[in-house]
């Protein structure tokens, strides 16, 4: 079965610093999603990547999918306290029906 591994598990950064979160799949990714979850709340969709080499940006967040489609990274530029939360990568598992599986998440803390 397909598994997603996220690194690091947690991250503490000073406000204004850049950071990168990684998501590695045990199998080829056919649809990669990034979500953000604030503590005690549901998930908020950030971006979806499908093609090898694809890159998308929204405000100060950029996500990339590598050419081999087995790894994705999420980069935040000039972090702010509002970026704090849990970042989850999800992928469509091709075991019928495109069931979405999720990584365990990266917990981001931003120090003001």
């Amino acid at each position, binding site marked *: 079965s397909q598994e997603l591994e996220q690194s690091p598990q947690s991250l503490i950064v000073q406000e204004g610093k850049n950071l990168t979160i990684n998501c590695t799949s045990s199998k080829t990714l*056919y649809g990669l999603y990034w979500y953000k979850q604030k503590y005690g709340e549901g998930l908020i969709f950030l971006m979806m990547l499908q093609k090898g080499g694809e890159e998308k940006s929204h405000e100060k967040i950029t996500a990339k999918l590598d050419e081999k489609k087995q790894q994705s990274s999420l980069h935040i530029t000039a972090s702010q306290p509002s970026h704090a939360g849990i970042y989850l990568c999800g992928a469509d598992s091709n075991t019928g029906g495109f069931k979405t599986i999720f990584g365990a*998440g990266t917990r981001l803390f931003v120090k003001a």
Partner: protein
Amino acid sequence: EAGVAQSPRYKIIEKRQSVAFWCNPISGHATLYWYQQILGQGPKLLIQFQNNGVVDDSQLPKDRFSAERLKGVDSTLKIQPAKLEDSAVYLCASSLKVSGSRNEQFFGPGTRLTVL
């Protein structure tokens, strides 16, 4: 546009009791999902409906969990009887998705269940 609604937000029960969660998806969304998120882990799909039919329930512990989506709109998830390991956040999500396509899921705020 109203989001995905869930109730209750919090529930505390004792083991062997029963509990039910309710979800109202975004209007017009054909697909509805129930996820279980244990503390420190990512969400795990329990069941996926398309309209009122089950698409995937392979990870639903059917001896104690049940779910239904009457009329292809609202859904309820029930646990009977609850075990200590069922303590988790239960997330409902919906999407416009039809089988074989990909698009984003919209999540509700979740129901935090504590089993004592």
